[in-house]
């Protein structure tokens, strides 16, 4: 379990992480979502004791990272796959990490096998492709067979096969009862991987909810109808207390079941030419939520169609009322197996 309690990090006058509190539960993949520059990496670095918070604390199983004895056997992490010396072999890279935590050398060969790098174990890492470095980083994270895993943008720059591979890998780790905390700026990716989401923007918590709840509440659904008797249909729908928007030759009925719209039209004897469900994209939802929390976003960068509120508003004030404690998936923590094999 990972806990952040009032975590705050300032760089000069810039507040990178602002009073951030959340809990990451074992047994599932928790996505850490936010636009670039939202403070995801900084938060992860504070959890891992690399950066010192100005305020608040981050605990792993109730302890500061620095207080952990042989931390790699409890916490595995991959923050940046490029943290390797180009002239050092993959095996030596893992070996120095293993030795520092008294992990037997045989485990180095095991994890290399696990990520499919056995064939290049003695090659200098500088020659590796990004995908291979990513696998090496993953091997490093798995060295100590840890209960808690943190990944920072693990699929960035990977090809589809690599993305699929990592996604499956993380899900398996979580299914084994481990705590998996993975950051991303892509909601579509997280929708496929994460069971739970912690969403931040400009260092502040925007949402902490189950992925499906988050998506259901954040994406606006509507029904598009066309009819030769558009005016009659409009009044019939309004009479049923539905919110109707006129969108040039068609109507958009907000937040109504498609059946209800059809029934209303039928009861009024109105001919329909079109009746289509419209689901807002995940990206739209994400932009809507974090819209104002994009640190480097220019005003033109925000699509007007989404209807995000204007720029001057402080982040978070327009966030939809997502329950802070949405019900968690029931997958209980399973005992962590002895070897880290998860394929």
């Amino acid at each position, binding site marked *: 379990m990972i806990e952040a309690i009032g975590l705050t990090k300032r760089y000069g006058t810039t507040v990178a992480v602002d009073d951030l509190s959340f809990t990451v539960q074992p047994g599932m993949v928790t996505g850490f979502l936010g636009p670039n520059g939202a403070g995801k990496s900084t938060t992860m*670095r504070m959890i*891992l*004791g*690399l*950066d*010192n918070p100005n305020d608040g604390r981050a605990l792993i199983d109730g302890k500061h*990272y*620095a207080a*952990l004895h042989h*931390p*790699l056997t409890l916490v595995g*992490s991959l*923050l*940046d796959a*490029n*943290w*390797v*010396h*180009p*002239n*050092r*072999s993959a095996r*030596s*890279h893992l*070996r*120095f*990490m293993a*030795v*520092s*935590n*008294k992990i037997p050398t045989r485990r180095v060969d095991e994890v290399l096998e696990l990520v499919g790098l056995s064939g290049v174990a003695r090659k200098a890492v500088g020659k590796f492709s990004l995908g291979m470095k990513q696998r090496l980083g993953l091997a*490093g994270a798995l060295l100590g067979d840890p209960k808690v895993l943190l990944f920072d943008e693990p699929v960035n720059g990977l090809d589809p096969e690599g993305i699929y591979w990592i996604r499956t890998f993380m899900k398996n780790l979580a299914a084994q009862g481990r705590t998996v905390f993975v950051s991303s700026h892509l909601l579509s990716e997280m929708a496929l991987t994460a069971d739970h989401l912690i969403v931040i923007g400009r260092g502040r918590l925007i949402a902490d909810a189950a992925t499906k709840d988050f998506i259901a509440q954040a994406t606006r659904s509507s029904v598009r109808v066309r009819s030769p008797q558009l005016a009659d249909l409009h009044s019939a729908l309004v009479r049923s207390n539905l919110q109707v928007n006129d969108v040039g030759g068609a109507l958009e009925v907000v937040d109504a079941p498609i059946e209800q719209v059809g029934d209303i039209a039928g009861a009024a004897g109105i001919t329909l030419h079109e009746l289509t469900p419209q689901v807002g994209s995940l990206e739209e939802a994400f932009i809507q939520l974090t819209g104002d929390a994009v640190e480097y976003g220019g005003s033109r960068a925000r699509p007007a169609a989404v209807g995000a509120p204007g720029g001057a508003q402080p982040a978070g004030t327009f966030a939809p009322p997502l329950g802070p404690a949405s019900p968690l998936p029931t997958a209980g923590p399973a005992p962590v197996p002895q070897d880290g094999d998860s394929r």
Partner: protein
Amino acid sequence: MTLLNVERIKLFSTRSPYWCLAAIAAASLGFATLFGLVENGEAAIPYLFLRGVGLGMSIFMVLAALAVTTEYRFGTIRNTFLGVPRRPKVLLAKTALLAVLGAVVGLVAAVASYFLAKALAQRPPIPLELSTWDDWRQVVGYGAIFAIAAVIAVSVGTIVRQSAGAIAILLLWPLILESLFTLIPTVGEKVGPWLPFAASDKIVAPTTGITNLFQPSGGPDAVQGLLVFAGTGVVLWLIALLLLQKRDA
């Protein structure tokens, strides 16, 4: 012990230390060979033909500084701290490994150069014998110099965290900065010999005989020189430790 092993794996799993060690051997033995052969070895005085080992000290400082700065350059310092979050232990292990390695390298380079020059020189100005403590000091003193220089280099590397900057400081300081200081009237002359690297030279400088002519008068004796040099290492190391604890990795 575990952490010393970690640092050993890190150091010797890259190429640069091997190049540096080869360069130290070449500088030390090359200089000794020259002095042994030229003019039948008439200039073969330990203090002079071991200057190559002194150059080796600069190379060793580069090696030691790189052991820290490349970790920052490539981000592996974070892997190191993820494994060992107690940073003082990491710095201590790194310093200890390089100091011990320095002592061995300095000692071996000086002894090997000494016997090489002795074997080659046919008419040395004074007999090349290791009979008194003073004779020994001028050779084995390099072990101490290398060890302390390693501590200074690791500290500077940790403070600066950047290869080019650290190497520039470590090369310019003994070669230029201290000699510039001695040019300052009155003060320079008195304080100059007490500056760390000038003082370190006294550890192996002759105190008697014709070779004493090469020595500027005044300044510390061998033990005082050792203390000044070691003190510099300790102070820099404590500053490095403080910054390492305070800064984000």
